[in-house]
């Protein structure tokens, strides 16, 4: 087991290196650097100004060296201004004496770099945003996983029954409804003051100044911004959470159903039934544990898969979490922020893969790692 984890970790690091280099390469293509210069300098700069800006801010060197700088294996760039003699450099913070600055400042030194768009340390930004997304994901999983398992087990315990068919169709429908469709429909129905149920509720006086549902224009809020300052309420957080959970749910439910159906036809269940164990006991005591092994791996693998959903939902509901940051970083070519985002994303993907593999081994006594 130890060697297995060690080997996996090695592959993980190699993957992360390759991926960050790809991201670095793509974000450092000249058209992208030009975009960066213009968003940072002035949107309407001339070509000559762009080149001089890039040179002054350390984007002039060869790409591979700059990647090394970012990693922290190549000394950070320094530059002396020909007119003022002022020394600037990658590792020299604002107001710092150039002599005191460290020679290396990259990933290996624990420095994630500087976000050009936000004018702030990347580490500082990423942390808070991850917490926000973590909260969102927690609630999404808290709703999605139990619901999916319930639907899956109910459907799978009597394969082919009417209950199975309706629940399966529901799961299929939920996987066929991407977040941008369900989010849009939810907003129209529940969070619009002019359409959907909110206007009716206002007419009845249930919403509004004296309404027992609260002093709001709409039943649910179409913007989750107020949830960011810790004020998570049922009304501002339900729509984003449900939107994410719904799309992921169908897939887990179908996996659970398949696994449950397989277990229910297996030999030992048949034996138990012939022995006269009640159906309820068979499902709860015998089938459930074995049926949940396969969904466990799927649930872990859902994490990276949900990332796209998180990006959509955070954009749709103005929730400034990790997904939103990723879009901002990508559309503004904020190189170091984007690199940090990709590291986080890659770690999430790889770590969940690892956990799912280990968990599969631990849960399933029939498999041994060679």
């Amino acid at each position, binding site marked *: 087991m130890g060697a297995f984890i060690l080997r996996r970790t090695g592959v993980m690091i190699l993957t992360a290196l390759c991926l960050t280099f790809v991201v670095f390469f793509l974000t450092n293509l000249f058209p992208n650097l030009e975009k960066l210069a213009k968003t940072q300098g002035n949107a309407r700069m001339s070509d000559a100004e762009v080149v001089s800006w890039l040179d002054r801010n350390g984007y002039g060197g060869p790409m591979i060296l700059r990647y090394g700088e970012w990693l922290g294996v190549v000394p950070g760039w320094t530059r002396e201004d020909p007119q003022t003699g002022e020394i600037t450099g990658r590792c020299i913070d604002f107001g710092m004496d150039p002599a005191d600055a460290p020679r290396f400042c990259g990933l290996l030194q624990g420095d994630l770099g500087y976000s050009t768009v936000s004018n702030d340390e990347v580490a500082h930004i990423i942390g808070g945003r991850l917490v926000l997304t973590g909260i969102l994901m927690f609630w999404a999983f808290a709703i999605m996983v139990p619901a999916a398992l319930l639907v899956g087990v109910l459907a799978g315990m009597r394969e082919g029954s009417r209950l199975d068919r309706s629940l399966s169709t529901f799961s299929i429908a939920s996987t066929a409804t991407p977040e*941008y469709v369900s989010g*849009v429909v939810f907003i129209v129905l529940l969070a619009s003051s002019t359409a959907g149920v909110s206007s009716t509720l206002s007419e009845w006086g249930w919403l509004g100044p004296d309404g027992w549902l609260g002093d709001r224009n709409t039943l649910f809020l179409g913007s989750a911004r107020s949830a960011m300052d810790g004020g998570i309420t049922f009304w501002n957080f339900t729509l984003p959470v449900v939107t994410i959970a719904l799309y992921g749910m169908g897939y887990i439910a179908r996996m659970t159903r398949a696994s449950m159906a397989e277990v229910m036809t297996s030999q030992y269940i048949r034996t138990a039934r012939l022995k006269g164990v009640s159906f309820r006991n068979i499902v709860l005591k015998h089938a459930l544990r074995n049926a949940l092994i396969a969904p466990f791996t799927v649930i872990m693998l859902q994490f990276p898969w949900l990332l796209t959903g998180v990006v959509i939902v955070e954009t749709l509901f103005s929730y400034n979490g990790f997904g939103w940051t990723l879009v901002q970083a990508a559309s503004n070519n904020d190189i170091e922020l984007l690199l940090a*985002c*990709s590291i986080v994303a890659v770690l999430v993907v790889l770590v969940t893969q690892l956990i799912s593999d280990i968990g599969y081994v631990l849960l399933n006594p029939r498999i041994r790692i060679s």
Partner: protein
Amino acid sequence: MEPLTWTGQFGTFLNPIMLAAVVVFFAAAILNFVIGFAGIRAGGYEVNDEGTMVMNRTPSDYLLMAMQFAVLVFLACCVGFIIGGIVLPEMAQKGILGAVGQRLLPVWIALIVTFALSITFKARLGLYGKLFNSSIGMVGFGLVMFWVYAALFSAWVAPFDALDQISSLRNDIPGTPTPEGEAYSHYLFGGDRLGRDVFSRVILGSTFVLQIAPLATVFAFMVGITLGLPAGYFGGRLDTILTFVANLVLAFPVILLFYLLVTPEIVAAGLPQYMSMVLFLFPIIFLVTLFNSRFHTQPKRRNLLVGLTVLIGGLLYLSLISDRGTVIDVLGWSRLPESWPDRISLGLFSIPLPQSLDLFDIGGNILIVFVSVVFVNSPTVFRIVRGITLDIKTRDYVAAAQTRGEGPWYIMLWEILPNARGPLIVDFCLRIGYTTILLGTLGFFGLGLSPESPDWGSTINEGRSLLTVYPHPALPPALALMSLVLGLNLLADGLREESLKD
């Protein structure tokens, strides 16, 4: 003229019936749930001592029958509206539903013909025929074919062009009449924020989705199969490297990848075109290997097939990857500069061939979107094919072929691949659905196809901003996308069920 009502003349008596059916359905469902708790369950057949069978009916059974009946009545009403739309002469009598039903007449006819023929001959149609044994499969197939036919007949179905504007009908509600002299008397689903017909755009949008999604999936399968078969069959270092690369691509969050690939800057740098050079090569390689491995003992036939593949494929390949005025450009002789340094400075990929060889330029963002979608899907297909190959290569018939002295490529393409078709077909259907969703996601982030294109993702994104006031431009494409993906998923489910019965 008055705006149309939704249900027209038939609505006066069909609406109450439909409403009653809905009420009955839900009431029965709730009651059934309640009595389920009370311990009353659906009855079953019981075999009596004397050998006859008796059907035990419980209240639950009657409720379930009521539900079935309600669904049938509801569907019958829908059919009634469509028939009314076709039969009744006046627009006001047809109503919106009837008029839509009438516009879709070619689609209905094609669907009826398809189903009638398929069900009649299903015994002779293999896996496709078996599909008609499963109701889920049939519903899925019906939904998919509905959109396929809608796309095929879109020129007849859609009353307006996707870009026709009637400025007086901005954001107008469904059923608004158009001014005199227009191509059709009403905007059936209303107008969008530029006064374009929502109904026509949804129908015409299906052509984009139904061209790009399946084609991109086919390409992804070509790439995945061409790489996955040898990786699984040979194993070793080749497998290690290919698997690592596939996992690398899979570790990328899809959305980050798109943001990195589909931005105008990256497009200006020509990256998608270089990628298309690599990716589009795979179908040619695939077909050449396919024919070569099969017919290398019959050189004449082999040469003909391989030659044709290279010729036609090559021509299409050059047309696909080259685009006038970009980094890869099939230059006409006349447009090639005089001096050699200039020629070299034009870059490696300015291919001096007659201009006429560049059959078509793919406009807008289509090429880029296409390449990115293929790129994202290929590694998953690769993993599936590799897994199946690992499984199948231990089978007896593979060993038999090996002892017969068949080459490895023959075994892979003509022994392993046909036996892997079941799971691959199922995954193909699911993957088209996934690709459709992906295209919509791209549209949602404004990275999609050409901006004015009526494709569903972009239309949803456009309609999103005014959603709370004018839901009608955004909802039809959203529901269309949902129904197509749902159809594909149901179809895949039906196919899986039926292929498991083998």
